[in-house]
């Protein structure tokens, strides 16, 4: 046993030469993706161990669809083209649930900073972009899980959905990208405000205006001019627009899927670069 212990100790350290490394961290794309997936795996494991939060996020969409949607369908005051109001708002509610759960992602980073987890990640020789992308990809996967739950809800309410493979894959892509955009945005906010209290305040302050200044529950054409301008700069508008065409039968995109996905991808890239720059600042 003693020799085993000694062998273990020798393995632990670096007896060959002073300062010699056991692992030469590879650099380049392979290392980058290795680090991204290391973060993704950890995040997914944690969600799977404690999935209650995931389910609790379905409560709000139920309220919007079952209460708000049902009531507003009766008024028929919102021009939704050839769609029923419920079919019109269903993609909006999916987008909203993506936004609302991703926007609080940043608070977990503040929490991890307070626990010292972020410090350890930042002291490791990983790319900052990989750490941030890992979080975004994990948020994307959570978004997909949420999509499944909301699809069940929508199906139960007998709203006509597109069942084609292309539509489903398109919706998945949009939900993934949307989750990545809003979670990375949330990370940027967290890195700037740095405390949980301030983050909660800002999070509340951002989500409802983003929701109402979008085409989620009424068309942009119905808005006053000033709000229309804000809606055009709101990434949520493009997510809803993409989802509306892909998700519901007879749904029409206003800006076209190319524009929608282009805007979302571009916003994500900008936020990713910004968050990677700001991420190390959270521990200062």
């Amino acid at each position: 046993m003693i020799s085993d212990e000694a062998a273990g100790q020798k393995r632990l350290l670096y007896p060959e030469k002073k300062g010699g490394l056991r692992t030469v961290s590879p650099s380049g794309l392979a290392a980058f993706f290795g680090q991204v997936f290391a973060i993704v795996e950890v995040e997914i494991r944690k969600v799977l161990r404690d999935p209650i939060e995931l389910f609790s996020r379905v409560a709000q969409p139920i309220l919007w669809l079952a209460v708000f949607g049902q009531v507003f369908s009766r008024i028929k005051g919102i021009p939704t083209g050839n769609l029923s109001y419920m079919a019109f708002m269903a993609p909006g509610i999916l987008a909203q649930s993506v936004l609302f759960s991703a926007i609080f992602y940043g608070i977990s980073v503040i929490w991890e900073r307070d626990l010292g987890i972020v410090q350890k990640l930042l002291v490791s020789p990983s790319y900052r972009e990989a750490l941030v992308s890992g979080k975004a990809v994990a948020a994307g996967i959570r978004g997909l899980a949420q999509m499944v739950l909301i699809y069940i809800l929508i199906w139960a309410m007998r709203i006509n959905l597109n069942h084609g493979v292309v539509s489903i894959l398109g919706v998945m892509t949009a939900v993934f990208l949307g989750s990545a955009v809003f979670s990375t945005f949330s990370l940027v906010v967290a890195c700037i405000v740095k405390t949980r209290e301030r983050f909660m305040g800002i999070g509340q302050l951002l989500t409802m205006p983003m929701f109402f200044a979008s085409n989620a529950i009424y068309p942009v054409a119905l808005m006053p001019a000033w709000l229309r301008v804000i809606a055009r700069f709101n990434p949520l508008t493009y997510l809803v627009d993409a989802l509306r065409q892909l998700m519901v039968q007879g749904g029409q995109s206003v800006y076209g899927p190319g524009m929608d996905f282009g805007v979302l991808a571009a916003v994500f890239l900008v936020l990713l670069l910004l968050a990677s720059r700001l991420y190390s600042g959270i521990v200062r």
Partner: protein
Amino acid sequence: MTGETTAQDVAVRASQLTKRFGSFTAVSRLDLTIRYGEIFGLLGPNGAGKSTTIKMLITLLAPTSGTAVIAGFDVADSSMDVRRRIGYVPQMLSADGGLTGRENLTLSARLYGMPRHERSENIRHALKFMGLEAHADKLVKAYSGGMIRRLEIAQALLHHPAVLVLDEPTIGLDPVARHAVWERLKVLRRDLGLTVLITTHDMEEADELCDELVILHHGKKIVAGKPADLKAAIGPDATLDDVFTSSCGVIIQESGDFRNVNQTRRTARRLG
């Protein structure tokens, strides 16, 4: 410090290391030399600049001026090379509670680029060395403080760092857990010649572990040397506590705000 120290023997060298936040100087022109194989203690009261110094050395904070070189690499110019060569254990119990011990180690191994075929074997040895084998697959949130700290040390050692940096390694641990951590650190030094940098304001810990120490106060180095020499300089029965209070106490008397506190206390005593 001895004059014979050659560049090859030096694990950490800081020269005139300075950090300012606006008009506040957290660390002022700090010189440090840490040789391979020694446990080096950075002591000082709260707010002395220990954490800021550590953050600069582990590349989390850029120095305002001055330089620091770790295992031959400059923290400012070659931060990635420095990161590959250091292991860091933060002050907070920072292992991820939602993961098992093994998963925490796997995450570290992957972030440090350890090849897949080496991972499980290396992780097993690290767990064994830290006495955590039996708990490897339990969630860390069920661990005691001492177990979490040992897991974190295992995590920080996995990639063979040249320097292990521990910020207040036993703060908040019970005496048994404290001694267990000390014992492991001593084994690491004795058997494997690991270089360790710790911050602490626990004088017993400093006395027990450190080969060399520096006391910081208001961001400046005010005392440096071996614990035994420092104690001997004060008196025959002096403890490190005496060294600490005598060195920091002098300065406390000199600074205006602290004298005011003392005056207030005297007034309170007189009145009361």
